[in-house]
C-alpha cells in the first residue's frame, strides 16, 4: 500500500474523473464539473509537493519514481489543467460539448501526464503517454457537429498512432539489446560495451526519440500540430500546446539522462537536428499564417526547438535549463491562447486584432506581455527562459546552433510583433468584443503574473528545477 501513496496526486484526479463520469448525465447543466476539476487540480498540485517531503523514492518494482524532477512537472501539469479549465468556461457554453465528459477527459489526460513524468521504465512511460494522447484525440474532436473538428481529430489520431508505433518499436528494440525496460537496468546493461558500437541500439534510440518528438511537435514530426490546434476548440489547443509539450520534454529529458546517458553523443546529435529544424521551420512557416491558432501552433513548434536546446548538452544543468523553459513556456502559451479565447470568434483571425488597443486596452496590454515573452524580450519570462537554454547550448560547444537560435528569435519577432502592430497601429474594423467571464480573466492574470515575475527575478525557479 505504501507504493500507492506515491501516486496520491494521480489518484485524486482519477477519483474526480470517475466521479464525473458516474454522474455525467445529472450535472451537464451545472457548474459542478469545472469547479470540481479546478479543486482536484489544486489538490493534486498540493499533494505532489507534499509527497516530495518524504524524499526521493521508487515504487511498483522500480517502475514509478518520485523525485524533484517528477514533482516539478506534476505541479506544472496540474497548473495547466486548472488554467485550461478556467479558460474553457465560456467556450463550452457556446458549443454542444458535454461538460462532464469534457472535464473527465481533461482530468484523465492530466493523469497520464503525471504518470509519464514519474515513469522510470519504458513501458509505464509508453502506457501513460498513450493515456494522455487517447484523451487528447477525443478532446480535439469533441465538437462533434463541426466537420473541421472531426477532421483534425482523425488526422491527429492517425499520425499519433503512427508515432506511438515508432515509440513502442524503439522500446522493443531496446529490450532486445539490453534485456530490460527499466531505466536503471538499461543504464547498467549499456555501461558494459563501448558507446556507438551497437547499431540496433542506435536505431532504438532514434525510434524512441522520434516517438517522443511527435508528442512535443518537433520538426520533422510536427505536421499534426497546426491542423489539430486549428480544428480543436481554443482551450483544448491551449491544453495540448502547453501540457503535452511540457510532458513530452520531461519524458525526453528523463530518457536522455536516466536511460540512454551512455549514448549521449548520438542523442545530442539527434536532438541538435530536431532543435535546429524546429526553430528554423517553425519560425519561417509562422510568417505566413493568418489564423491565430495556426500561428500559435507554429510558435509552439519553434518553442519545442528552443526547449530541446537544453537537453543537447546531456548534463543536469542543461536539463534544468529545459525545465525552466518548459515552465515559463506553459504560462506564456496559455496566456496567449487565453487572449484568443477571451476575444471569441474575433480572436481566431489575425485581422481580428486590428485596433484592439483602442477598444480593449487592458486585453491588448496582456497580449503584448505574452507576445514579448514569446519573442524573448526582457523583462519577461521568455527572455530568462531563452537565455538559460542558449547559454547551455553554448557551454556544450554547439556555437552554430546558438547563433541560429538567436537569428531565428529575430525572425520570430516579426510575426509576433505583427499582432502587436495590428493591435496598436491600426484602426478598429469590427465592433468591440464582448466582456469575458471572470474565470478567463483569473487564468489570464495568473499567466501574466508568472510571465512578469519570471522575467523580473529569473532565478526564482532555480531551486525547484532539479534534473533527474
Amino acid at each position: 500500500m505504501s507504493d500507492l501513496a506515491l501516486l496520491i496526486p494521480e489518484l485524486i484526479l482519477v477519483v474526480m474523473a470517475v466521479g464525473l463520469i458516474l454522474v455525467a448525465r445529472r450535472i451537464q447543466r451545472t457548474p459542478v464539473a469545472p469547479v470540481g476539476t479546478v479543486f482536484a487540480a489544486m489538490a493534486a498540485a498540493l499533494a505532489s509537493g507534499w509527497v516530495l517531503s518524504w524524499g526521493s523514492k521508487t515504487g511498483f518494482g522500480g517502475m514509478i519514481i518520485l523525485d524533484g524532477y517528477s514533482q516539478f512537472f506534476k505541479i506544472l501539469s496540474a497548473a495547466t489543467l486548472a488554467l485550461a479549465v478556467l479558460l474553457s468556461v465560456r467556450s463550452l457554453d457556446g458549443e454542444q460539448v458535454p461538460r462532464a465528459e469534457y472535464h473527465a477527459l481533461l482530468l484523465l489526460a492530466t493523469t497520464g501526464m503525471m504518470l509519464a513524468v514519474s515513469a522510470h521504465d519504458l513501458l509505464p512511460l509508453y502506457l501513460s503517454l498513450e493515456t494522455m494522447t487517447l484523451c487528447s484525440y477525443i478532446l480535439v474532436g469533441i465538437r462533434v457537429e463541426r466537420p473541421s473538428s472531426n477532421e483534425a481529430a482523425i488526422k491527429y489520431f492517425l499520425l499519433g498512432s503512427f508515432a506511438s508505433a515508432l515509440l513502442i518499436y524503439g522500446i522493443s528494440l531496446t529490450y532486445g539489446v539490453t534485456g530490460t525496460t527499466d531505466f536503471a537496468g538499461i543504464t547498467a546493461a549499456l555501461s558494459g560495451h563501448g558507446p556507438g558500437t551497437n547499431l540496433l541500439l542506435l536505431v532504438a534510440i532514434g525510434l524512441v526519440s522520434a516517438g517522443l518528438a511527435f508528442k512535443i511537435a518537433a520538426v520533422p514530426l510536427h505536421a499534426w500540430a497546426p491542423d489539430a490546434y486549428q480544428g480543436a476548440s481554443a482551450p483544448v489547443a491551449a491544453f495540448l500546446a502547453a501540457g503535452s509539450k511540457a510532458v513530452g520534454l520531461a519524458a525526453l529529458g528523463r530518457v536522455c539522462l536516466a536511460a540512454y546517458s551512455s549514448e549521449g553523443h548520438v542523442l545530442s546529435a539527434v536532438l541538435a537536428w530536431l532543435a535546429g529544424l524546429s526553430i528554423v521551420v517553425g519560425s519561417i512557416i509562422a510568417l505566413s499564417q493568418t489564423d491565430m491558432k495556426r500561428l500559435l501552433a507554429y510558435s509552439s513548434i519553434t518553442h519545442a526547438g528552443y526547449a530541446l536546446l537544453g537537453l543537447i548538452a546531456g548534463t543536469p544543468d542543461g536539463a534544468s535549463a529545459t525545465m525552466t523553459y518548459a515552465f515559463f513556456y506553459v504560462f506564456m502559451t496559455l496566456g496567449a491562447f487565453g487572449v484568443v479565447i477571451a476575444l471569441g470568434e474575433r480572436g481566431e483571425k489575425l485581422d481580428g486584432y486590428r485596433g484592439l488597443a483602442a477598444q480593449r486596452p487592458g486585453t491588448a496590454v496582456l497580449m503584448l506581455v505574452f507576445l514579448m515573452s514569446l519573442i524573448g524580450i526582457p523583462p519577461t519570462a521568455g527572455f530568462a527562459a531563452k537565455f538559460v537554454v542558449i547559454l547551455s547550448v553554448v557551454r556544450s560547444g554547439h556555437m552554430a546552433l546558438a547563433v541560429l537560435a538567436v537569428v531565428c528569435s529575430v525572425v520570430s519577432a516579426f510575426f509576433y510583433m505583427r499582432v502587436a502592430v495590428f493591435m496598436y497601429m491600426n484602426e478598429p474594423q469590427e465592433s468591440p468584443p464582448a466582456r469575458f467571464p471572470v474565470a478567463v480573466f483569473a487564468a489570464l492574470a495568473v499567466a501574466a503574473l508568472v510571465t512578469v515575475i519570471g522575467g523580473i527575478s529569473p532565478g526564482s525557479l532555480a531551486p525547484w528545477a532539479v534534473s533527474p
Partner: protein
Amino acid sequence: MNEYIGIAVSFVLAAGIAGATVVLGSTLGKKNPTSEKLAPFECGKDPFSLPKGRFAIKFYLVGILFILFDVELVFLYPWAVVYRALGISGLIEIGLFLGILMVGFVYAWDNGALNWE
C-alpha cells in the same frame, strides 16, 4: 536454436491440420450448392451491400461494450489461476479493477447505450 523447434513444430502442425481440413473437405465432401449456402456468412446485417451503404451506429456501440467485458475477462482469467497465491490483496485489487470498468458500463447504460431504439 533448440528452443525454437517447439514453435516450428506447432506452426507445421497448425498449417498441416488447417490445410488438411480444407483439402479433405473440398475433395471428399458432398457438394450440393444453393444460393443461400454460397453466401458469405455474416451476422447482424445483410451479407451484401455496397460499401457506400450506411451501417447502423448501434453495432459500433455494441462493439465498444463488448470490448469492455472482453478486457475484463482477459484480466480475470490469469487472476483466477493464481488467486490463492494473491490472497485478500489480490481480491481487493481485482475488485477495484472491476469497479473502474463498471463505471464505464454504468456510464454507457445511464446514457442510453443499451436502448436499441
